[in-house]
C-alpha cells in the first residue's frame, strides 16, 4: 500500500523524535557517567552531616556515584590502614584525621595529587591548616613550599570556646581572653547540679583528653618536643610551662567541672551544652550544628563561640583536629581520577556553601567571610576566622597514636586524682622518650619535675 503524504510526514516525525530521544539519552548518559563510582571512608563525627549534604549535592549535580563507608572514629583509621596495606585498596578517598595523617605520609601510602592531574592545585582561598595537606618526603615534614600536595582539607575542625551568651548577658560577663578569666567566669556560673561552670573532654579514649588539653599546653608556651620541625625530639612535656598548663586544666575540672570530668568524652560535652547543663566548653566547631538545632538543643540561640583563651604570655592555641581527604596509591587509575574529581568539586565555593549551610565548618576563607557569616545561625564564623592564625598540630611523627595513648591514660589519671600533675607529666615524658628512642629519633627529656 502506498503511503499518503500525511503518513510519510508522521513516520518522519516519529523517526525524528525517536532519534532525538536516543541522542538525548546517549548525551545524558555520557554526562551522567563522567567518572567511575567511588567509595569514601569516613568517621561519624559531628561534622558528618555537612559533608554528607555536600556528597548528595555532588551526586545530583554530576550524576557521579559516591558511596560513604561511615565508621566510628577509631574504626575509620583501622579500616584505612587495612585498605592501604592490601594489594588493591577498597577506598578511593581516605578521610584522615590529623591524628593519623603522619602515619600515612610516612608509610608512603598516598598518591601526590599532581600525579593524577598535574594542573591540580589547592584553591588559594582554602585555609592552610599548618600545611598539613602537603608532605615533603625528603625532610619528612609538612611544607607547602617544598612538599607535594597529597590531599584536600575536608573539614576545618578546631576548638573554640562555647559559652552561654544569655548567662553572660545576665551576669554582665566579658568573653574571657585568658584561662584565669575563664575560671572566674565559670565560677560565677557554676551551680551544680543544675549547671556546671565548664565541661571537659577528660575521658581516656582514642582521642579525648589529649586533644582537649593541647590548647592549654601550647598556650602556656609548652610543647611535647623541643623542636619537632628541626628534628629535635627531646621531650619537653615535663617543663614548668607544661605543669602550669596541666595545673590550670585540672584546677578548672575540679572547681567548675562536673563531679567526674574524667568520664566525659566529646559526646558528653556536647550533650551537656545542648541540654543547658554547661556554661562553657571547648569542643570542636563541628559540634556547632547541634547547638541551634531545635530537635537536639534546649538552648537554641543562647550559645555563642569565641577564640580559645590563652595562658600567661602565650597565644590562643586551638589544636588541629581537621580532616584531609587523600587518595591512596593502591587503587586503579580511573578511581583515582574519579576521586580527584570529587575533591576538585569539594573545594569550590558552591560546595563549601552547602557545607556551611548545614552548620559544618567550611574550608574556604571567602565562605567564612561571606554574607553567610552575617546570619545569626552562622555567628560562629567570625570566631573561626579570628582563630585562623593560631591552630597547631599535635605532632607530625608516625608514632603519634602511641603518644596519644600515653597522653590519654596519664592525663586522665591526673584528672581523676590517681596521679598529681608532676607525676603524670614525668611519666608521660619517660614513656614518650622511650617511644621515640625505639623509633630511632634524636631524643632525650627534661629533668623530672618536683
Amino acid at each position: 500500500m502506498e503511503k499518503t503524504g500525511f503518513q510519510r510526514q508522521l513516520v518522519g516525525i516519529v523517526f525524528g523524535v525517536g532519534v532525538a530521544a536516543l541522542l538525548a539519552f546517549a548525551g545524558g548518559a555520557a554526562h551522567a557517567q563522567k567518572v567511575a563510582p567511588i567509595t569514601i571512608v569516613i568517621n561519624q563525627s559531628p561534622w558528618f552531616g555537612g559533608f554528607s549534604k555536600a556528597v548528595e549535592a555532588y551526586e545530583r549535580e554530576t550524576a557521579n556515584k559516591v558511596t560513604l563507608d561511615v565508621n566510628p572514629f577509631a574504626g575509620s583509621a583501622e579500616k584505612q590502614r587495612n585498605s592501604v596495606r592490601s594489594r588493591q585498596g577498597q577506598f578511593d578517598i581516605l578521610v584522615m584525621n590529623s591524628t593519623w595523617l603522619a602515619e600515612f605520609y610516612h608509610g608512603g601510602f598516598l598518591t601526590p595529587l599532581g600525579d593524577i592531574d598535574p594542573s591540580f592545585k589547592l584553591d588559594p582561598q582554602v585555609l592552610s591548616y599548618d600545611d598539613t595537606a602537603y608532605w615533603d618526603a625528603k625532610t619528612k615534614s609538612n611544607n607547602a613550599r617544598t612538599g607535594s600536595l597529597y590531599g584536600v582539607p575536608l573539614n576545618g575542625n578546631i576548638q573554640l570556646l562555647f559559652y552561654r551568651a544569655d548567662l553572660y548577658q545576665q551576669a554582665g560577663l566579658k568573653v574571657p581572653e585568658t584561662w584565669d578569666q575563664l575560671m572566674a567566669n565559670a565560677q560565677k556560673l557554676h551551680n551544680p547540679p543544675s549547671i556546671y561552670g565548664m565541661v571537659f573532654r577528660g575521658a581516656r579514649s582514642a582521642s579525648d583528653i589529649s586533644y582537649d588539653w593541647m590548647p592549654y599546653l601550647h598556650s602556656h608556651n609548652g610543647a611535647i618536643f623541643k623542636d619537632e620541625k628541626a628534628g629535635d625530639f627531646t621531650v619537653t612535656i615535663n617543663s614548668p610551662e607544661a605543669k602550669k598548663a596541666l595545673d590550670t586544666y585540672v584546677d578548672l575540672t575540679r572547681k567548675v567541672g562536673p563531679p567526674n570530668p574524667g568520664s566525659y568524652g566529646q559526646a558528653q560535652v556536647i550533650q551537656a551544652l545542648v541540654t543547658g547543663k554547661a556554661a562553657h566548653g571547648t569542643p570542636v566547631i563541628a559540634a556547632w550544628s547541634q547547638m541551634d538545632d531545635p530537635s537536639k538543643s534546649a538552648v537554641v540561640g543562647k550559645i555563642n563561640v569565641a577564640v580559645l583563651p590563652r595562658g600567661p604570655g602565650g597565644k590562643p592555641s586551638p589544636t588541629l583536629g581537621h580532616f584531609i581527604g587523600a587518595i591512596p596509591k593502591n587503587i586503579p587509575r580511573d578511581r583515582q581520577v574519579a576521586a580527584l574529581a570529587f575533591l576538585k568539586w569539594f573545594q569550590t565555593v558552591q560546595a563549601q556553601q552547602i557545607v556551611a549551610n548545614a552548620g559544618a565548618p567550611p574550608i574556604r576563607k571567602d565562605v567564612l567571610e561571606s554574607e553567610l557569616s552575617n546570619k545569626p545561625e552562622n555567628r560562629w564564623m567570625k570566631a573561626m576566622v579570628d582563630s585562623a592564625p593560631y591552630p597547631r598540630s599535635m605532632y607530625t611523627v608516625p608514632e603519634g597514636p602511641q603518644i596519644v595513648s600515653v597522653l590519654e591514660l596519664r592525663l586522665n589519671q591526673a584528672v581523676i586524682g590517681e596521679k598529681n600533675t608532676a607525676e603524670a607529666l614525668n611519666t608521660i615524658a619517660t614513656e614518650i622518650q622511650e617511644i621515640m628512642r625505639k623509633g630511632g629519633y634524636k631524643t632525650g627529656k627534661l629533668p623530672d619535675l618536683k
Partner: protein
Amino acid sequence: MDAHLLGDARRWRYYALAPAVAVYLLLTALPLANLVAMSLHDIRWQGGSADWQFSGIRHFAELGGDQLIRAGIANTVVFAIGAVTCEMLIGFFLALFTSRVVTGRVAYRTIFLLPILIPGIVIGAIWKLMYNPDFGVINQLLSLAGLPGRDWLGEKNLALASVIVVDIWHWTPFVFLLLLAALESLPQDVFEATRVDGATAWQELRYVTLPMMWPAIAVTLLFRLIVSFKVFDEVYLLTGGGPGTATEVVSFTIYRRFFTEDRMGYGSAISLVTLFVLALLIVLALYGSRRFSKET
C-alpha cells in the same frame, strides 16, 4: 583380619582425617605461626610496604613492665571471678526454682533468655543510658527513694562493678538455659526415691541434685570463664578501659596496642601470652573437673 586389609583400614583413617587436619592447619596453625613470627619482629611501613626487623624476644621481655597489661590482668581476673560466680549462682537457682513450674513456662523462659538475644552494641547503648548520671533511669529511681545519684561508669571505684553487672545481666540467661536443660534431663526416679526416704529439700539438693549436676555445672563454668576472660565489647562500649585503668581488661589492651597504636609485633606478643595462659587455664580446669567428678 587380613593384615593387608587392616593396613588399608588404618591408612583410610588417616585419609579421612586429612581434610580436618588441613582445615585446622589453615585456620588455626597458620595464623598462630604468623602471630609467632610477628611477635619476634618490629613491623614498620615505609614506601607502601612492610619492613620487618627482627627483635628477638624483646616484646615478650617488655610485657612485665607494661602497666596497662598489669592492670588488665588484675581487672580481668576480678571481672571473670566476680561475673561468673554471680552468673553461676543466679543461673543455677533460677533453673532450680523454675524447673518444676509448668504454667507459663514458654513465656518466662523467653523473657529470661531475652538478654542473650540482644546484640552487644544494643546492650552497650541500653546500659550506657541507664547508667547516665544526669538522665539515667538508675539515678532517677535512686532520687525517687531520696538517695544521691552516682556516676556509675565514671567513678573509678564503681566502674568495674558496673561493667560486671552488665555482664551478669547479659550472660546469666545462658547459664540458666544450660543448667535448666541439665536439670530437666536428670532421672526423676532418683528424686522420688530420695523423697520416699524422707530427705529434706536441702539434703536432696546437697546429696542428689548437685552431684548429678556437676558435669553440666563444670562445663558451663568452664565455658563462661573462658568467655569472660576474653571480655571486650562491654568494656569497649561502656568505659573504654577508664577512668584511668579502672576497667582495663586484657583483650582491650591487646586491641589498643595492636590496632589503635599499630604495634603489630608487641600486640602479637601479648596475644600469644594470653592465648598460652588461657590454654593452660582450660587444661587445669578440665583436669580439676575430672578429678572432682571421680572423687564425688
